């Protein structure tokens, strides 16, 4: 991954400034760098969600690449159609055969883990040359922070409130890359913009591969996670350093962790910066820690070696 350095990040901005994403929005960072990594020769199909509404308010647009939004659950299907159209028109000589135009679908966690899962599965199964990018802010932010299949354990959301009986979300986040992997795709990767060169390397690789590829992008959300806007990158970094988020890729069946973490920080350091976890008791933090430990063990098993080390407690 080291071939790509900060200096190689293109200067040209394909996501125009002036969009309406919040200050400190993780998705805004994802989109900006995603477009830089992809370049101009793309057509984007975007699912309904926070990014879609904040970047396309008529009569303005933040997109300096061709872009279409159709609905919430169908970005993968729309992108399938775009890819098929480009293929057919090239074959018929209606489009230049030389130029590669990549179809890219973008969806939030709601649009991917939940309502768009079927369209995603169809797209992956059919083998379209489409890159699907999931920006995961772990709830339905656009409509007011309702939980999704990507919401983590104990997270407060407006539909998993903290009350006398409820303690926030009580289920675990779904293994979306596991689901994608089951379709036998050539490339799937988890990215985190706090590790920006890794982010670029993976997006570029995913876009270059012929056939379906999947990028799972970590995306903090200021109002949804209830954190300070200036802490976005810090939180993103802590997600990796605590083992809560693991940067990895699966390339033609081969699993590789791209950001090894020899010594983990306690998960508490990650949780305490976010208001959505403010209600957690010591026991609940321990439960989250155990869950992360289990996940890390699983990752190490897949990697065949200890790439994410044990928690090191500062005393």
């Amino acid at each position, binding site marked *: 991954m080291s071939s790509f350095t900060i200096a190689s990040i293109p200067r040209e901005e394909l996501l125009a400034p002036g969009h309406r994403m919040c200050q400190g929005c993780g998705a805004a960072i994802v989109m900006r760098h995603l477009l830089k990594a992809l370049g101009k020769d793309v057509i984007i199909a975007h699912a309904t969600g926070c990014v879609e509404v904040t970047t396309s308010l*008529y009569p303005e647009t933040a997109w300096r690449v061709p*872009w279409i*939004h159709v609905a919430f659950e169908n970005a993968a299907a729309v992108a399938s*159609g775009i890819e098929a159209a480009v293929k057919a028109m090239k074959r018929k000589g209606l489009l230049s055969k030389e130029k590669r135009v990549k179809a890219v679908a973008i969806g939030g966690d709601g649009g991917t883990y939940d309502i768009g899962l079927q369209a995603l*599965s169809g797209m992956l199964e059919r083998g379209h040359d489409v890159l699907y990018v999931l920006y995961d802010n772990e709830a339905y932010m656009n409509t007011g922070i309702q939980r999704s299949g990507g919401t983590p354990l104990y997270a407060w959301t407006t539909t998993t409130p903290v009350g006398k009986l409820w303690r926030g979300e009580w289920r675990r986040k779904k293994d979306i890359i596991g689901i994608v992997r089951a379709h036998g795709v050539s490339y799937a990767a988890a990215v985190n913009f706090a590790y920006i060169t890794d982010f670029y390397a993976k997006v570029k690789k995913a876009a270059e591969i012929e056939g379906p590829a999947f990028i799972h992008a970590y995306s903090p959300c200021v109002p949804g996670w209830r954190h300070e806007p200036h802490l976005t990158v810090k939180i993103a970094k802590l997600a990796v350093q605590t083992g809560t988020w693991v940067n990895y890729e699966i390339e033609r069946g081969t699993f590789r962790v791209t950001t090894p973490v020899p010594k983990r920080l306690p998960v508490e350091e990650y949780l305490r910066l976010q208001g959505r976890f403010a209600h957690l008791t010591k026991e609940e933090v321990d439960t989250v820690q155990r869950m992360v430990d289990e996940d890390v063990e699983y990752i190490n098993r897949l990697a065949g070696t200890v790439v994410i080390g044990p928690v090191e407690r500062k005393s």
Partner: protein
Amino acid sequence: MVEKLAEFVANGELDAEFIHVESEHSALSAVVGASAAGARVFTATSSQGLLLMYEIMHIASSIRLPVVMSIATRAISAPINIWCDHSDFMAASDSGWIMLMGMNAQEAHDLVIAAYRIAEDPRVLLPVAVGYDGFWISHTVEPVYVLEKEEALRYAPKRVTWRALDPEKPVTMGPLASPEWYFEFRVQLQKAIEGSRGAISEALREFGQHFGREYREVDGFYTDDADVVLVAMGSVTGTAIPFAEEARKAGLRVGVVNVRLFRPFPEEEVFKHLENAKVVAVVDRAINPGSPFVGPLYSDVAVTAFKRGLDIPVLNYVTGLGGRAVLRSHLEAMVKHAYGFVGKRMRDVETHYGFVGVRE
């Protein structure tokens, strides 16, 4: 429908990308994406599949994409039933699509070709749906003249007349529109569909010039001197026309109107066939439960008459739901019942609708 297209593609007769979608929702989404990218597209569905597409139908028309779809019109659940009526077609009739209805297999074929001419006309740029009765047309055998590819392309040449997604000229489609702009988008859609009539007439007329089969938005049979005019859509008109001829021999002056273009509703053309009638009998193959009209075709015909001050009884006969056959005897029962209202006015009608061919 799609099975035949698959054969064409499998044999290399049709050079196309065939997308094996996992649902109708994705089918329409994929053709919307492909059309937005500049391709000519087609999909087909029925019944529950059409209802699943419903969300995307509105989006296709509002993004102004020339998608063409055929609909073998069928009943909707529950109870689940795979046979003919117009419940699906009517449920989609508020989605901003131009909607045509074929009365036999030849029309089901021809109108799809005409649909491309209409949809892609730069004055139109709207999706077009071509309905044809499920089973009565879709699953019965009739000889059909199939157009040669070259002939069809001469009549409807492929040109990208709409703004396509292209990295050389990036555009944003399907944006968010606030209260400041949304209304204008919807008004544009209404104006576009209203304004499509000229292009539709032209496409149908030229179809006749090219292939010798001319279709009109509305057909009228024996309506000049009819006492009772039956207004219907789809295959039932194929029963109604010979029935009217027979009824005339028995002294019942019956006329028949076939509505081929349902959206935009061709009011003038329909009205022309009603003005001399004494009673209008609208045959519906769907119910809009709880509406004051009951039948959806009835609502359009009744408003057409009302707007023009035609104060005669306009009655509604709902029949043939869920694949029940509509027989000449049913049409006879409607006409005989309608004859009872000759000389009356609408306000004299106590119950404007009835069900024909149903258990008591």
